[in-house]
C-alpha cells in the first residue's frame, strides 16, 4: 500500500495501480475517453491528464503508476485548460452532427463535451477524407473516428485478426483497414467487437431498419420475425428496462405493435439445429475411423468467416448444419408457407440478432434453399430493433406480455442457452445422450462446459464412450485452440466456437456499454431462463417433432439436407451487390 494525496484528500491505495484507478478508489472521477481497461491504456486523447505536484507538465492518469507520496490534483487551472482544449481539438476533427448519429445519448465524447460545458469551439473544422463501401455490414465513418485506437486493440488483442491499424502518418494519421487493404479484402470476421468498443459513432452496423419498415408497410408481404436467444437478455438495456421486465414476451408485443404478422423464436430452429448437428455428430462418432473429427459447431457466421480465411484447410471439420437463423429462414419459406398455404415469395423473414456477421450470413450467395430469394430477408441487430421501438414511439414501460406465435415460436431451454458460450455444446450433449441411450440425462449433467474462461475443455461419458469436448469464445482463444489442434497438442471430438467473447450474449450487435463487458451477466439471464423452462431438451420441442413428422421426416433426411445443411466451401466472403 502507498500513501498519496488526491485533491487534498489523503488516501492509502494498493501499490502498482494507475493514477486513474487510485482516483476511482478514492471516489474521484477523472474524465477519460480513449481508455479501455487492460486493453487500451495508451494516453492518446490526453483528456485524463492531471497535475502532480513538483512536475511542470501534466501526466495522464490512465497509464501512469502512482508513486508513494504523490500529490495529485485533478482540477487545476492547467488541467482544466488542457482538458477542454484537447476535447475541443478532438471536436474540430469530429463530425459532431449528433442529431443523426446512432450513438447520440451513448457517446463518450458527447458526454465529456457536455460535462465540460463546451458550448462553442474555437478551431477550424477539418474532416479527414476517405471512402467506405456502404453496402458492407460493418461501416466506418472516418469523420467521426477520434483515433482512440480501441478498435485496433480489440481486433489485435482479443480477436487476433488485426483488421484495423493506424494508416498514413503525421497530421493525416487515421485508423483504417490494415496493410492498405479495403474492408472487403480484409479478413474481417464481422464480429462487431470494434463497434461495441468504439466510444463514439465511428463504427456501426449497416442500418437495415428502413427495409423492414418498407416490408411492414407492404400489404402483399407476410412479415415473419425471429428473435435470437441472446436478444432477450439485452434488448431492454438501452431503453432503460430491467432485465426481469424486458422479457421476450414484451418484445413480442412491441414487434406486434410495429406490425409484424408473426412473431417467432430462433429457439425453435436452435432446437432443430441440435437435432441435425447432434445426429451428424453421432454419425461421425459411429464411423470414427473414416470421419473428420473433431467436429466444429457451425452456428456462428463470424467463426465461419474466420475459419475460411485463417484455416481454410480445416473446413471439413465444420458441421454441415446451417445456423439456427438460416434454418429458420428455410423452414419459414417452405414448411410454414405450406401451413399458411401461401406463395413463399410473399413471406418476408426478418431476424433480430445480437450480431453483425448475421447480416453477412443472410446474404451469402447460397443461402436461398427455399427457392424464394434469400431465406432470411433482413437481419437487424438488437440495437437496430431498439431504435425501431424508439422511432415507433412505443411506450415500453407499459408493454404487456404476449405469447409468441405457433408453431415456430416454441423453443426449449436447451435452445435459449445457445446465446451463451458453451450453450450449443451443452444443448447438443443433452440430446446426443438421448439419441445414443434412448434416455434423458439430467438437464444439468453437462454443466461443466459453462464458465468464463475463453477456452475450456471437459470429458463426458456417453454410453461408455469418452467424449472429449472443448469450448472457445473470442477469436484469439479460438486461434490458440486451432493451433493446438493442428500441432496435435490437443485432441477433441467436438468443439464449440463462438466468435464473440462470452458468446452471442456479448455479440457485436448488442447494446453498448462503455467500458463494461456484459456477456457474462446476460449469459446468466439465459441460464436462468433455461432453468425455469418446461422443456429442457431440444428433442422434446413439440413443434420440432411435428415439423419432422409432417415435413422433414427425420434428422439428416433428404429434405433436411436440402434445407438445413450447407457446404461452407461454397460461401463467398463478399458478394458485390447486384452480382
Amino acid at each position, binding site marked *: 500500500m502507498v500513501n498519496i494525496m488526491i485533491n487534498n484528500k489523503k488516501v492509502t491505495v494498493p501499490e502498482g495501480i494507475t493514477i486513474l484507478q487510485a482516483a476511482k478508489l478514492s471516489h474521484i472521477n477523472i474524465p477519460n475517453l480513449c481508455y479501455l481497461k487492460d486493453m487500451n*491504456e495508451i494516453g492518446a486523447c490526453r483528456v485524463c491528464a492531471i497535475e502532480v505536484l513538483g512536475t511542470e507538465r501534466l501526466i495522464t492518469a490512465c497509464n501512469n503508476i502512482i508513486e508513494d507520496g504523490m500529490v495529485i490534483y485533478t482540477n487545476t487551472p492547467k488541467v482544466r485548460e488542457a482538458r477542454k482544449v484537447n476535447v475541443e481539438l478532438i471536436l474540430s476533427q469530429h463530425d459532431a452532427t449528433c442529431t443523426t448519429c446512432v450513438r447520440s445519448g451513448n457517446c463518450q465524447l458527447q458526454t465529456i463535451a457536455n460535462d465540460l460545458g463546451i458550448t462553442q469551439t474555437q478551431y477550424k473544422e477539418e474532416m479527414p477524407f476517405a471512402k467506405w463501401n456502404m453496402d458492407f455490414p460493418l461501416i466506418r465513418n472516418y469523420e467521426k473516428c477520434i483515433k482512440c485506437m480501441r478498435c485496433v486493440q480489440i481486433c489485435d488483442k482479443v480477436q487476433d485478426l488485426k483488421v484495423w491499424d493506424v494508416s498514413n502518418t503525421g497530421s493525416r494519421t487515421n485508423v483504417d483497414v490494415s496493410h492498405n487493404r479495403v474492408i472487403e479484402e480484409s479478413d474481417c470476421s464481422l464480429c462487431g467487437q470494434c463497434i461495441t468498443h468504439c466510444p463514439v459513432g465511428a463504427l456501426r452496423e449497416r442500418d437495415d431498419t428502413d427495409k423492414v419498415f418498407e416490408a411492414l408497410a407492404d400489404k402483399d408481404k407476410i412479415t415473419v420475425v425471429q428473435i435470437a436467444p441472446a436478444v432477450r437478455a439485452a434488448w431492454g438495456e438501452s431503453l432503460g428496462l430491467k432485465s426481469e421486465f424486458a422479457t421476450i414476451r414484451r418484445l413480442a408485443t412491441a414487434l406486434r405493435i410495429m406490425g409484424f404478422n408473426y412473431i417467432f423464436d430462433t429457439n425453435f430452429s436452435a432446437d432443430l439445429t441440435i437435432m441435425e448437428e447432434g445426429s451428424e455428430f453421432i454419425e461421425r462418432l459411429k464411423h470414427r475411423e473414416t470421419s473428420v473429427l473433431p467436429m466444429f459447431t457451425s452456428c456462428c457466421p463470424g467463426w465461419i468467416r474466420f475459419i475460411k480465411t485463417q484455416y481454410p484447410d480445416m473446413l471439413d471439420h465444420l458441421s454441415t448444419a446451417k445456423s439456427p437463423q438460416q434454418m429458420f429462414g428455410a423452414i419459414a419459406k417452405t414448411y410454414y408457407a405450406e401451413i399458411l398455404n401461401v406463395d413463399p415469395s410473399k413471406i418476408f423473414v426478418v431476424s433480430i440478432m445480437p450480431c453483425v456477421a448475421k447480416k453477412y450470413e443472410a446474404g451469402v450467395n447460397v443461402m436461398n434453399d427455399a427457392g424464394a430469394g434469400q431465406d432470411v430477408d433482413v437481419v437487424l441487430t438488437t440495437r437496430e430493433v431498439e431504435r425501431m421501438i424508439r422511432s415507433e414511439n412505443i411506450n415500453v414501460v407499459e408493454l404487456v406480455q404476449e405469447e409468441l406465435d405457433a408453431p415456430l415460436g416454441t423453443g426449449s431451454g436447451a435452445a435459449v442457452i445457445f446465446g451463451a458460450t458453451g450453450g450449443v455444446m451443452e444443448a447438443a450433449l443433452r440430446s446426443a445422450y438421448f439419441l445414443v441411450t434412448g434416455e434423458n440425462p439430467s438437464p444439468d449433467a453437462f454443466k461443466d462446459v459453462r464458465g468464463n474462461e475463453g477456452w475450456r475443455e471437459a470429458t463426458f461419458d456417453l454410453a461408455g464412450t469418452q467424449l472429449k469436448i472443448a469450448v472457445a469464445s473470442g477469436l484469439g482463444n479460438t486461434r490458440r485452440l486451432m493451433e493446438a489442434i493442428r500441432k496435435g497438442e490437443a485432441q477433441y471430438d467436438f468443439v464449440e466456437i463462438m466468435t464473440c467473447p462470452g458468446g452471442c450474449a456479448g455479440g457485436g450487435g448488442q447494446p453498448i456499454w462503455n467500458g463494461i463487458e456484459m456477456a457474462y451477466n446476460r449469459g446468466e439471464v439465459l441460464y436462468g431462463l433455461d432453468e425455469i423452462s418446461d422443456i429442457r431438451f431440444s428433442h422434446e420441442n413439440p413443434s420440432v417433432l411435428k415439423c419432422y413428422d409432417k415435413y422433414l421426416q427425420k434428422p439428416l433426411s433428404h429434405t433436411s439436407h436440402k434445407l438445413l445443411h450447407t457446404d461452407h466451401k461454397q460461401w463467398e466472403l463478399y458478394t458485390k451487390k447486384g452480382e
Partner: protein
Amino acid sequence: MSRLSIITKDRAQATVEDMYKDLERRITASPPGLCPIDLTSSFLKMAHAQTCGKCVPCRIGLGQLQNLLEDVLDGRGKLETIDLIEKTARSIYNSADCAIGYEAAHMVLKGIEGFRDDYMEHILRGRCNFGIYQSVPCVSLCPADVDIPGYIALISEGRYEDAIALIMKDNPMPATCAYVCEHPCEVRCRRNMIDDSINIRGLKRFAVDNANFIPLPDRAPLTGKRVAVIGAGPSGLSAAYYLSLMGHHVELFEKRDHLGGMLRYGIPSYRLARETLDKEIETMLSFDVKIHKGINIGKDISIVDVRNKFDAVYIAIGAQIDKKIGIIGEEGEGVVSAVDILRDYGDEKYHDFNGKNILVLGGGNVAIDVARTAIRSGANKADIVYRRRKADMPAMKEEVEAAVAEGCEIYELSLPLSIERNEEGKVNGLIVKPQIVGSMDNGRPATRDAKELPINIPCDMVVIAIGQGIESKDFEKDGIPVRRGVIDALASAGVVDIPGVFAGGDCISGPATVIQAIAAGKVAAANIDNYLGFHHVIETPVKVPDPRLSDRVPCGRVTMKERPADERVHDFLLSELGMSLQEANQESKRCLRCDHFGFGVFKGGRIERW
C-alpha cells in the same frame, strides 16, 4: 546616421537562431517511416518562408507546389497532378535565380523519382505506403532489437545484473558491445529534440563494469538436433549461444587457435580487453558447445561433409582476407596488410615497430586500429594516408580523434601512386598525388586530381588497410551460392536454395559492424530452430521498471573520457574510461522512455520474447 554600424542580434533574431538549432536536432531525431510526401510538403513550406520574394518561380511556385502536394495528400489528386507537380518543379528548378528556389524544387523532383509509388498510392487509394511501425527510435535502429529503454531504466535503479540479463535476451555479447559497438541506436535518439542523444553505449559499459555474477537462463530440454556453426566470430558465437540455449547440440568450427573472430583478430586489446572477451565467450559457450579449433572448413573438411553430419549448418566465416591496393612497389618486404598485423596481435604475437616510420593507407576503423597499435608497439611514426578528406573517413569520429591525440598524423586528400624502394629493395617512401575535393557522389564528395606535383612521403613501412574480402572460394566450389564475392543468403539467413544451410554476418554483407553480426546470429538461431521443427521462445523474467513521471529538463550528454594520450601510448590497456556512478545516474535518467511515452505505449514499445 553613421556611415557604418555594427549589427547586433536583436532578441527575435537570437530566438530564431535558437529555433534553427532546435530544428536541426529535431530533424536528426526524425522517426523512421514518415510519409515522404508529407515531409516534402512540410519542407517546402519552410523553403517558401525563406524566399526573399524577388522572383516569380520561388515566391509563387513553391506555394503552388505545396498546394498540389496537399491535394495529393488530401485525396484530391489525380494521376495528372503528378505530371503538373513535376512540370512546375522542373520549371522552378530551371528558372529560379538562387538556391532558395532551385534547391527546393530539386528536392521535389528527387521525391517524384524516389517515391513515385507513394504518390500513386495516395492518389489511387487514398493511403500512404509508409507508417511508423518502429516506434522506439533506439530499438528500431539496433539490428538486434535490444530493449534499450528497458536496460537504461534498470541501470538508473542500480539493477546492473538485470540490465545485462535483459540485454542478453537479444544480444548475448553485452560486454563486447559495451566497449566496441558502433551504437547506431544513438543516432535518432528522441532526446536530441531536447538536447542531445543518450550515451547508450557508455551506460551499457557502466552496467557491464559494475554487474556482479549474472545467472544464465535455464537451458531448454535437449532436442537431440545437431547444428554446426562455422566461424567463432560474434555471429557464429551468438548463433551457438541461442541454439544451445534452445536445447540443440552445437559444434563450433574455428580455423584459428582462438575464438572471437574479428573481435580478437581485428580489434586491438586497448579497445576491448582480451580478458573481457574471453570471459564473455566462455559464458556464451556454457551450454555444452563442442569446440573444434584449428579446423578450416572447406579445406580440412568439406562443407558438404559438415552438412551431412549435422541437421543444420550456420556459416559465419566473416570477411577475413586483405585487399591489395594495386600500386607499384606493393610486392615485397616492408609492405604488409593491416589484417595480418592485427591477426598476429590476436594470437599474442606482438610486433616490434621500434623506431619505424609507418604509413597506413586507408580511412576506416581498421586503418585507425593498426596505426594506434603500431604507436603502442614503439613506432616512431604511424601516420594515415587517405585519398579523401579527413571528414569523409568512414572510421568512427572518436577513434580518429584518439589516434590524432596519440600522435598520428593524417595525410588527407592524398592518393597513393607508388611505393618507393632503395637499391636494397627497402621501402623508403610513398608517392602520393595531391587531390582536391570534388563533386558529390552518393552523399559524400569524390576527389579530383589537384594541379600539383606528386609528393614523396618518406617512410620505411607501408600498411594496407583498404578493406577486407571473404574467403568464399572453397564454399563456392562445394555448391554454396556466391554473388559478387559474398555468400548469397536471404533475410532469414537461409542460404538460397539449400535447405538447412544458413549464413550470416560479414560473409554475406561484406565487412560490417559487430552488432550486425550478432543480430545475424540471432536471426539464424531463430530460423534454424524453426527449420528443425521447434519454436523455442527466448525471454527473460526481468521486469522493466515503470517510467519516472518527473519532467525531463534539458541536460547535456555525458561523454566518454580517455586516459591521457602520453600515458596510453605505452600500453595495450583500455584506453577509454568508464562513466562514474554520478554520471551514469544522471545520464540514465535523461532517457525519455519512448517505450512508454509516445507511440511505444500503443504498439512496438517492447518485444518481450522472440
